């Protein structure tokens, strides 16, 4: 990590000594950072898919992938990804070509660009935005557009229905999620993710500050809904909607949806560990390790929940969102305000 800092510093010096204008230096650094984040994301998704299969196997008394790449099937996801890359890219004659072909990328892109402002540690962060939390919320609203694009573009009633459901669900759960994040922002007095983590040095992790415990629960429920996972996976409810909005997709485009889904899961868990679990802070281990440990703990929790609870009905989904989470979040906002003032 110090290596990265040194490299970045020497890069800056090198550009300055050659008399390049500052924007070239910035562009090169942005490019390097984005490639690094992309690689991290791809590796993470490979690990997460493998982990999901292993966790589900353990919970369901199965073995899971056990042959591809050694005893534990570590290369199973790599094999799957290669298979998806080699498959034919099928699109039936009636698709709306533009919407159909670009939807997968629009679903994946937000989860990717959201990492621009995630502080993996105080020294490893692509860019510390003053309005980091707001930026994240704005970006997280984008996948819905991709989902409804996929639903409409597929020209398939199941896909369309799934797209509509996805948007309804995400809009519903975005509201309590934003309010839960607002509680944290009120507590920290800043929208910058780096500063939110640094503020938790004074108060301890925000989960253990009483009003924010409720905010954490609300955030986790909303985040699981936001990343379209069981028990809130109505947009791709297999028993009702075939494959949801990616019914008509195959090959690389299907892989993009998959990638987007797991990248989003990783992102919402990383975001939760920044907002509530003190981000990179922790003793002994390097900060990046702490950040990943907290994030992976939340991801494993999400997987655990996934293989425990059944899918909720669409009306239950809506009533949980509007009738329970939203009032609870608003109540929590008031409590947090009182708590923050009283401190």
């Amino acid at each position, binding site marked *: 990590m110090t290596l990265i800092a040194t490299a970045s510093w020497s890069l800056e010096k090198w550009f300055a000594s050659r008399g390049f204008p500052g924007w070239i230096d910035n562009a090169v650094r942005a490019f390097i950072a984005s490639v690094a984040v992309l690689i991290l994301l791809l590796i993470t998704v490979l690990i997460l898919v493998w982990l999901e299969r292993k*966790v589900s196997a*353990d*919970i*369901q*008394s*199965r*073995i899971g992938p*056990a042959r591809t790449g050694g005893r534990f099937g570590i290369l199973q996801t790599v094999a799957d990804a290669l298979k998806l890359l080699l498959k034919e890219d099928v699109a039936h004659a009636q698709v709306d070509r533009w919407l159909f072909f670009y939807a997968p990328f629009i679903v994946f892109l937000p989860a990717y660009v959201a990492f621009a402002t995630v502080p993996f540690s105080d020294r490893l962060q692509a860019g510390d935005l003053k309005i980091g939390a707001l930026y994240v919320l704005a970006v997280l609203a984008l996948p819905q557009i991709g989902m409804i694009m996929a639903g409409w573009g597929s020209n398939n009633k199941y896909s369309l229905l799934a797209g509509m459901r996805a948007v309804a669900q995400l809009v519903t759960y975005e509201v309590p999620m934003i309010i839960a994040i607002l509680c944290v922002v009120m507590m920290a007095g800043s929208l910058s993710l780096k500063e939110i983590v640094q503020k938790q040095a004074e108060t301890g992790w925000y989960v253990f500050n009483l009003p924010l415990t409720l905010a954490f629960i609300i955030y986790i429920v909303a985040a699981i809904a936001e990343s379209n996972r069981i028990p809130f996976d109505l947009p791709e409810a297999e028993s009702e909607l075939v494959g949801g909005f990616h019914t008509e997709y195959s090959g690389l485009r299907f892989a993009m949806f998959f990638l987007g889904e797991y990248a989003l899961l990783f992102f919402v868990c990383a975001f939760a560990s920044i907002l509530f679990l003190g981000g990179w802070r922790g003793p002994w281990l390097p900060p990046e390790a702490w950040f990943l440990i907290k994030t992976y703990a939340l991801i494993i929790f999400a997987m*655990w*929940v996934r*293989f*425990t*609870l059944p899918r909720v009905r669409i009306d239950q989904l809506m009533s949980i969102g509007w009738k*329970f989470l939203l009032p609870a979040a608003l109540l929590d906002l008031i409590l947090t305000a009182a708590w923050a003032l009283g401190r």
Partner: protein
Amino acid sequence: MNAFQEIWASVSSISKGLYVTLTNWVRRPRVTQRYPKERRTPFPRYRGLFILRRDPNRPRETTCTACLLCWKACPTDVFYIEGEGKGKERHPKIFQMDLSRCMYCHLCVEACPFDSLAETTEYELATYSRDQYLYDFDALSRQDRVQGRIHAELLAEPVEVSLLGDEGEPSSNE
């Protein structure tokens, strides 16, 4: 009040469910068998591949006398047998079973007066073509194929009991 009861009910039921999956996760009761590596032992009375019992003192080293009773008992015409020799020397010249027609009904084994024909627990009988299901005398009397399987110790020599041990009642050969 009702709302709080509902919240409590949902929280407690969700945590119960999580507890169940967690205990399963930690204890890992493994049910899966990795088939080619791990095999389930077949039940003793499992009807698998047939075998002709050996008897070193008889012609062609078999207890079979080519009496054709199995052929007559067979409802699906699995057998083709040609006998050779007279009296005690009678033995099969050709003994063929077309197992693609066999439904493992056990009637031929019941019919055999010398318990010559028996079933083993060998169950991996898939082949690449239909004519590979035609088992001839040599294939049926090859004993190494079933060695180590359940009836192997019974097959080395003629025995009095029925090989599939019908409810522990020994059947007489005479």
